């Protein structure tokens, strides 16, 4: 994969810090020498004059052609990307090449992301190895160049190439259980409906009525009672699930990574089961995807998830209110959040008040923090933990089941925890 290569980038020259002082010393000394009639003053300025003469040999714009190629356009979190930078220019230059990586990509020690070459001539090639640290759609780095002629007093600096766009997918977590949607739709699926109909799950036994299928006859009950009895079944239907992904971040990527893995795992398994899955991102820029099913929905969901990942590090505030969000009344809302933002609590409470079934999985990334450095740090973390507990309690008070998700078995613990809580408190909306 490579970024589109075009015309060479014309870098304008910028003066170095030495240029103006050298000029000032030279002009000042020559003026003083002439005015005072002291030839010795010129001798003081001669080294600076010489440096000016040599340093301004090369002026004007510098054409630099550069490309950044990588070996893949799609990869998983944590995967390595290998690529190559090619830089070309004319004449000998002291050259520094730097790869600036976006938030989602990081350098991999000991592989360099900066190279410095004195008096080099082009073209040059540099191997690059980066690691995908955060899911989302990211550019594979930017190539920046800083060049100066040997002894030069001018610097040419700027971005000369941008890498191709990469799709970094969240790591896969396997799920073997589903959450129960609030109300099943009349589309075949694997969820057990509350009402009785055609299906495989036994619901009740009742006397035969005209119209019942003979295949539903329960021969044992019929023989015991002396009249025909039939089995009734729950229909197996599909449901609607809306995954709410809170991408507010404190600058660390661990919570985001865990949230994305859980969201993707939950969404994938529900899509596979025939459910309609939607996605709402709360974060820098909010995004929504209406619930849909099938293969196409899976790709749309992935694209939306990647776009959220790209927005994730943007912590700019936004001004939307929850009632604008398109959450179907029959959908189960699963919010994956770190609870760093108090507004997320308000949104969940609001959805609940509007009759939606809401469940919250709180992503705890406390294990990703470095050990506390001081007693103040310990107290601050304790206070923060209390605040998070208070927010959890605010959710639980309105009947929203809340589970805390640690680092291991993430998505499984979300589903298991919510199902367990759902039995005791219900994940279904009160109607």
């Amino acid at each position, binding site marked *: 994969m490579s970024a589109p290569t075009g015309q060479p980038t014309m870098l304008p020259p910028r003066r*170095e*810090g*030495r240029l*103006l*002082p*050298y000029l*000032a*010393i030279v002009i*000042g*000394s*020559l003026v*003083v*020498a*002439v005015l*005072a*009639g*002291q*030839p*010795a*003053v*010129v*001798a*003081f*300025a*001669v*080294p*600076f*004059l*010489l*440096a*000016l*003469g*040599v340093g*301004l*040999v*090369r002026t004007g714009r510098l054409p630099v052609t550069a490309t950044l190629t990588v070996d893949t356009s799609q990869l998983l979190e944590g995967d390595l990307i290998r690529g190559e930078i090619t830089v070309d220019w004319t*004449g*000998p230059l*002291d050259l*520094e090449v730097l790869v600036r990586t976006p938030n989602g990509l990081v350098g991999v020690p000991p592989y*360099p992301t*900066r190279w*410095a070459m*004195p*008096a080099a001539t082009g073209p040059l090639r540099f191997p690059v190895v980066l690691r995908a640290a955060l899911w989302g759609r990211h550019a594979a780095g930017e190539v920046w160049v800083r060049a100066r*002629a*040997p*002894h030069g007093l001018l610097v040419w600096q700027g971005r000369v190439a941008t890498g191709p766009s990469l799709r970094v997918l969240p790591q896969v977590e396997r799920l073997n259980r589903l959450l129960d949607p609030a109300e099943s739709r009349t589309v075949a699926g694997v969820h057990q409906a509350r009402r009785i109909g055609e299906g495989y799950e036994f619901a009740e036994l009742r006397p035969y009525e005209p119209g019942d299928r003979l295949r539903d006859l329960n021969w044992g009950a019929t023989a015991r009672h002396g009249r025909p009895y039939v089995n009734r079944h729950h229909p197996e239907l599909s449901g609607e699930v809306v995954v709410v992904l809170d991408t507010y971040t404190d600058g660390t990527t661990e919570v985001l990574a865990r949230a994305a893995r859980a969201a993707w795992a939950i969404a994938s398994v529900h899509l596979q089961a025939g459910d309609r899955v939607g996605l709402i991102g709360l974060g820098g820029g909010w995004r929504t995807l209406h619930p849909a099913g099938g293969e196409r929905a899976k790709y749309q969901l992935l694209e939306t998830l990647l776009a959220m990942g790209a927005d994730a590090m943007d912590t700019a505030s936004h001004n939307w209110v929850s009632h604008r969000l398109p959450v179907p009344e029959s959908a189960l809302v699963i919010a994956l959040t770190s609870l760093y933002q108090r507004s997320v609590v308000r949104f969940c409470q609001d959805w609940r008040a509007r009759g939606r079934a809401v469940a919250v999985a709180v992503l705890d990334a406390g294990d990703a923090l470095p050990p506390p450095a001081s007693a103040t740090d310990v107290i601050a973390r304790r206070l923060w933990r209390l605040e998070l507990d208070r927010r959890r309690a605010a959710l639980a008070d309105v009947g929203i089941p809340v589970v805390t998700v640690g680092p291991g078995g993430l998505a499984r613990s979300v589903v298991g925890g919510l199902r367990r809580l759902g039995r005791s408190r219900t994940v279904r909306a009160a109607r």
Partner: protein
Amino acid sequence: MTGLRLGLAAGSLTGVVAANALALALGPEQGRPLFAICAVFALGAAVFGLLVRNDRFGLALLASAPPALGLLATDRTWLLGPLGVLLFAAAELCAWSWEQRGAGADPALPAHRVLRSAVLCGVGLAASLLCYAVGAAHPLAGTAAVFAAALGTAVIAWVLARAGARR
């Protein structure tokens, strides 16, 4: 701050200190307090330029000029050229130290970079002494002669460097 950058910055600071100390020690006594203030300012500007903003190192050069020019009041005017070279070398070392910023692990000391700076300083010293000699030998038309010699030196350097760059 890497080891190489620290060494280069220390060398640069030493150059400024040495130039100012020499100028103060060998300069005229009557203007010494004023020159000392300039030297202290130069020292502060050099430290600031080395640690915080490289483009502020020029202030250290400009502040060092008065103590150096104070030598005109003595019979040691030949020292102006070497002092200029010393300050020039300090400025080059400062620029070099800033080039090492963010370099990560210390790269090997590039021999040709040292050679290049040494050659420039050596040529500068020779040219400045030559200019002084021309001025001293022709006292009647000294200023004009030195002025012409200095400009001629810069032009020749520029032409040679340009030819070298094209080659």
